[in-house]
């Protein structure tokens, strides 16, 4: 079962890319590949002011991962206890079927090794009770390491707060 979720607070995110650099630093990812990425979308004018969204794209660690279905060798594996999907390098033959299969571009090509590698939520850190590097290092604490259930309650709280602020200052 997929237990984890990286919640991104758009109001707090400043698009600084610290998440990407902390990720690459922690995982020693060579230039050319990125386990996570911030994609700026905008600016689009809303109420007279151009706004921008920074879309955070790690691996989403799907409940039914397409990459695993596509992998012919069993290199792409899902940890039963918490649902983290990762690559076992000794089994990867570099066929790129997972890259073809994933709609979000999460599996990355390791040019040096000729194999796929990807975001594993920094599972060695998770196993020590820590959080993924992208979350830990985030400049403005915009990323949060929580459960999917917690993320929906944050959304509700934020919405309710916004509603009440609106009623105080019409």
């Amino acid at each position, binding site marked *: 079962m997929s237990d984890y979720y990286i919640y991104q607070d758009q109001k707090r995110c400043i698009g600084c*890319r610290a998440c990407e650099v902390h990720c690459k630093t922690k995982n020693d990812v060579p230039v050319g590949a990125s386990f996570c990425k911030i994609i700026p979308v905008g600016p689009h004018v809303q109420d007279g*002011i151009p706004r921008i969204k920074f879309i955070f794209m790690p691996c989403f660690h799907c409940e039914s991962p397409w990459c695993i279905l596509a992998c012919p060798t069993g290199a792409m594996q899902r940890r039963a206890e918490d649902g983290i999907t990762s690559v076992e390098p000794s089994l990867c033959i570099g066929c790129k079927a997972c890259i073809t299969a994933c709609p979000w571009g999460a599996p990355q090509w390791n040019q040096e090794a000729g194999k796929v590698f990807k975001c594993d939520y920094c599972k060695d850190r998770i196993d020590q009770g820590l959080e993924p590097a992208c979350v830990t290092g985030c400049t403005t604490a915009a990323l949060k390491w929580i459960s999917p259930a917690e993320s929906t309650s944050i959304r509700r709280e934020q919405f309710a707060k916004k509603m009440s602020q609106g009623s105080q200052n019409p």
Partner: protein
Amino acid sequence: MSETSKKVVYSVCSMCTVRCPIEIEVENGAVKHIWGNPHVLGGRFLCPRGAAGKVFENDSERLQGPMIRSGERGSGEWRKATWDEALDYVAERLKKVIETYGPESVILGDRGGAFTDLQKAFIKALGSPNYFNHHGSCSNSVHNAHNGMTGQRRNTVSYDWKNCKYAVLYGRNILESIGTKEAKDFIDALENGMKFTYFDIRWNYTAAKADRFHIIKPGSDYAVNLGIIHTLISEKLYDAEFVNRWVLGFDELAKFISPYTPEWAEKESGVPAREIVAIAHEMAEVKPAVILYAGWMTAWTEDDYYFRRSIYMIYALLGGYEAKGGMLFNKNEVDAGYKPLKKFVDLVPKVDKKRFDGVGWKYKHLSADYGLAQMVPYAVLNEDPYPVKAFINYRFDPLSAFPDPEKFKEGLRKLDLLVTIDVNYSHTGWVSDVILPEATYLERTDSVIVKSGPKPSLWIRRKAVEPKFDAKPKWWILKQLADRLGIGQYFPYNSVEDIIAFQLQDMGLKLEDFNSKGIVSLAKDQIMWDRKDGLKFKTPSKKIEFVSSMLEENGIPSFPPYESPKEPPEGFFRLTTGKTAVHTQGTTLNNPYLNEIQPENSLWINTTEADKMGIKSGDTVEISADGVVQTIKAYVTDFIHPTAVYTLHGYGREIPLQSRAFKKGMRDNTLMKGLLKVSIGGNVPMTDCFVNVRKVS
């Protein structure tokens, strides 16, 4: 299998000059990861540049050992040297210059900041008054403006984001040109309901979070402020009690401001008068919990000084000094009840000599703490006021930072000695006679610094790993040179531990006190001064002087009539520059990870103007000024003022040994011909640069 050795070292980042507190994870003698120091920041938050410190450390495209030039200056022909050879080379030439022309013919420039004690002591011990830093191309106008009004530099106050209810920022791109704590504090404040008004000549990520945002005519920020002041005074929205107690020259301001109505300001800036009035009202309503960001890099225009003064005047009108949610005075170790942290510069006798740059005699209203680096080429070329023959350049790169590098280089070429001490290759290093590589911030321990603030503390940068290459810490380099030059007595230490023991000796503290958290807190709570009688303005009147005695005594008016910013001639645009969160100007462009994210700059140009020339986003355009021509890719947008173009500063590196950054993008400062000037605030007027743009077919 051998056991993994792990340790954590608390230190201070140096990927930019914000100096964030960091936690370095070290494994088997190598940097494993760098985080923000959670004991100071409340979490391991750290900006992308800080996080990229590990790849910087491991990169081989940085200085690897002492180098002496073997060809012409700037030819890029070097020979490797031993430390003894390089230090002897520098010392012999310095001796010769001093014997022939006197000690004042030696000048020393650095980046400024907190770690300046040893280099200030060094130049003073040589008998030269000529210490200066990069502020002429950065914050001179805001420092000098605050100094002229309050006797306090900009950084003697800090912003109370935690309690702020309303913020106004002028071209301060606080969410892209970032310091970790400040960016997070700002976002926290927005989440806490702080309202935020932003003025800039273009949209950016900061503007995207604003409640009110206006693209204003370049250089008209001052006009907007005059409109705000007009409203605050004419509608009596100011804090009369604070003004009566602390302000000198209110009546003169009231008289001066009368023609500068919000309607007038609208014509100057393009910001609707009703908006200016609304902003003044909103500020007044929550005063004094208002932050008006006084500026970081403020080398904008000739009259930038007066614009910065107007910001501090609004603070005074709102009673914003030592105010919850406004500005708080920074307190130091003495304010916290300790004896001062000792400085080496105080061991050296005072030097009573005229400065090379005119500060203190020609420019009496400007501070010698910063000096005027832009005067270096003139002093060298004209031997005015006396010959300048040797330049010790410590981690400073005027050929990247200042306008008109060709002019600057002309001066540097005429020197008898140019020595650069740095961790990176720099354009100035590249034309030097000798480069002495400094150990990186991860490889050296530096002196203790006072982090003044409402709650002061002591900070220290500590060595986490052994130097990867043949590099040495600054304290060692300066000591070696001092011994060779007969001034070793002013550097009475043999190790950095000796330095720290000397610094701390009167404070009852020792190095071990930094072990657990990386800092030593000097106060339990915020130290607050009494707003009625305890504010420490250091002017002759001990007040905030709207009519500045410092200016008046030197024949400079406190309230000259407003002058509209210069308009670019037909077919030209004002060139403006800025920063991104992933780079520290040119110094990080060659960092493998940071280069990957933002390898090139582009030229922002307004859609209407671009359409006239048939320019589309992605097109290569030629940008030129006074015979200098550069090429760059265009980015066409509705969200920049039509009279301006914009680019990221620092690109177009010309050092072949930095292969990733070499000739990538456009080097902006080459276009700023003739701008090595001293404006009223001591700044170069960086944005008074008009460029022609055309499509390359």
